[in-house]
């Protein structure tokens, strides 16, 4: 019966598509020269609500460009990007504002992503200022909210008056995450957000990201060159090479079963650096 099927569908929910790239192509024109560089070539990628999509590629693969396009910071040359099933290009003014609140970015260089002239307080307050939100008009509520966000990311409230140069790389990245979380976004694009951090800090921040996902249900597009980190973070991984998606699937598939030559090359490279002597050295 109809209502029985409906009941069934409710009990096994399909992941909801939040943001999607369809056939996205991006060309860059070299200024003053005839040639163009094709950074992205017919890319299809889906980000599901509340889940983490990993995007793995080496430098020059185009992964950051794709991140920019999904964040609305760049426009594709061809193809379409959809937000809740509506094309970015055809969003109303209201929907555009919603998109800006729903999609945030954290960057690779945590210190450079912060204005050196702004204090910690100002950094986290900025989203409220820009979006002219309710908290912005009430200073007290704003302070409370900012302290909540800092606590969320594991920063103590006594750094509120400091400037980015006075914080470590890990602290700056946590600050970037606090700023990104301010508007309770639905998707955070992590553009190589862990790469510049020391290994123990990478571990801690990766765990923080996971905790935030559990707490707030935020989705991630986790862009990285580190296949192992992608495996830890992601529910599904896309592998990119020279602007094209060469393979995609759950982490176990990518790490063990994929027969794509580039994916294999990636795996072998990691293996030869990581295991060859490290594990042997550790266990005598």
């Amino acid at each position, binding site marked *: 019966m109809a209502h029985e099927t409906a009941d069934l569908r409710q009990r096994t929910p399909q992941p909801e598509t939040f943001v999607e790239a369809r056939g996205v192509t991006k060309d860059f024109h070299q200024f003053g020269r005839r040639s163009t560089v094709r950074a992205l070539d017919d890319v299809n990628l889906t980000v599901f609500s509340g889940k983490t999509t990993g995007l793995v590629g080496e430098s020059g693969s185009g992964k950051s460009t794709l991140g920019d396009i999904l964040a609305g*910071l760049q426009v594709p040359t061809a193809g379409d990007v959809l937000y809740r099933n509506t094309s970015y290009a055809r969003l109303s003014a209201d929907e555009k504002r919603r998109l800006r609140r729903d999609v*945030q970015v954290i*960057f690779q260089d945590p210190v*450079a992503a*912060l*204005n050196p002239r702004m204090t910690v307080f100002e950094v986290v307050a900025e989203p409220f200022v820009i979006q002219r939100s309710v908290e912005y008009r009430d200073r007290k509520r704003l302070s409370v909210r900012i302290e909540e966000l800092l606590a969320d990311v594991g920063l103590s409230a006594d750094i509120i008056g400091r400037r980015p*140069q006075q*914080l470590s790389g890990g602290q700056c990245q946590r600050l970037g995450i606090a*700023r990104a979380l301010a508007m309770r976004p639905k998707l955070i694009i992590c553009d190589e957000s862990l790469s510049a951090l020391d290994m123990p800090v990478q571990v801690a921040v990766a765990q923080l990201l996971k905790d935030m996902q559990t707490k707030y249900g935020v989705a991630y597009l986790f862009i990285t060159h580190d296949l192992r980190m992608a495996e830890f973070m992601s529910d599904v991984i896309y592998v990119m090479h020279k602007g094209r998606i060469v393979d995609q699937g759950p982490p176990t598939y990518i790490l063990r079963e994929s027969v794509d030559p580039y994916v294999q090359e990636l795996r072998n490279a990691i293996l030869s650096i990581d295991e060859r002597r490290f594990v042997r050295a550790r266990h005598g």
Partner: protein
Amino acid sequence: MEQTGRLLNQRLISVERPRTIVLSSAIFVLMLALALIGLIHPPQNPMSMSIMDRFAPPSSAHWMGTDEFGRDIFSRLLVALATDFAVGFGAMIFGWIGGAIIGAVAGYSGRWVGEVLMRLMDAAYAFPHLVLALLLLTVVGPGELSAVFAIGIFSVPVFARLTYGSVMEGKHLLYVKAAQSLGGHPLYVLRRHVFPHALPTLLVQAASSFSIAILAEAALSFLGIGIQPPAPTLGGMLSDAVNYLAESPWMALFPGLFLLLTVVGATTIGDAIEGRVR
């Protein structure tokens, strides 16, 4: 390690602050103070003539002597300083605002708009500035406002170029990209992030433009085109003094000295600003 942050709490000093900069900045401040006195309350009436006291050498009554009309040179000098400072500031601000607007628009718009505007600025900059000022003054007629306009206008290309450069550089700053991703409107991003980044360079240029403006005003008044007599100006006083150089050298000495000190002070204060702000 989070502890690294505490280490970075201290600012590492890498440049010794030379005493010469402190000295020159003091000179500029002194000139500015004298100009203010000239503006508010010069010791004697700069206009009052006295046939009897003509060409008097420096004395206790007239600290820098008198000119060919018996007017007190010291008082005239203070008023002249005030006038020239006013023109200098006015011209510099005019150039700064005009240049900043053009430069910001050029930098933030697409590549072609930027390139075209900058080529126009280059063309304007290539024009010898005094000739341009002369032409403009002939058209609009002499006077204080005209001088500000004529001198200010040749500062515009320099500021435009600098602002353009800073905006172009600023566009690539990561925290500018971050502000954009937060939903910041271009004007907001410019004001809050790009402009403060450009400010140090612009301030240094402001000091430089100021001293150029002062010199230009002196040149124009010397030629008799800028601000008209009997209003005292550094250039005008020098122009008069030239006729009496042998008999009454103090008439040229003091205005010349003040002009030199003002320009040197203004230029080195630019260096001082650069040292502190970087």
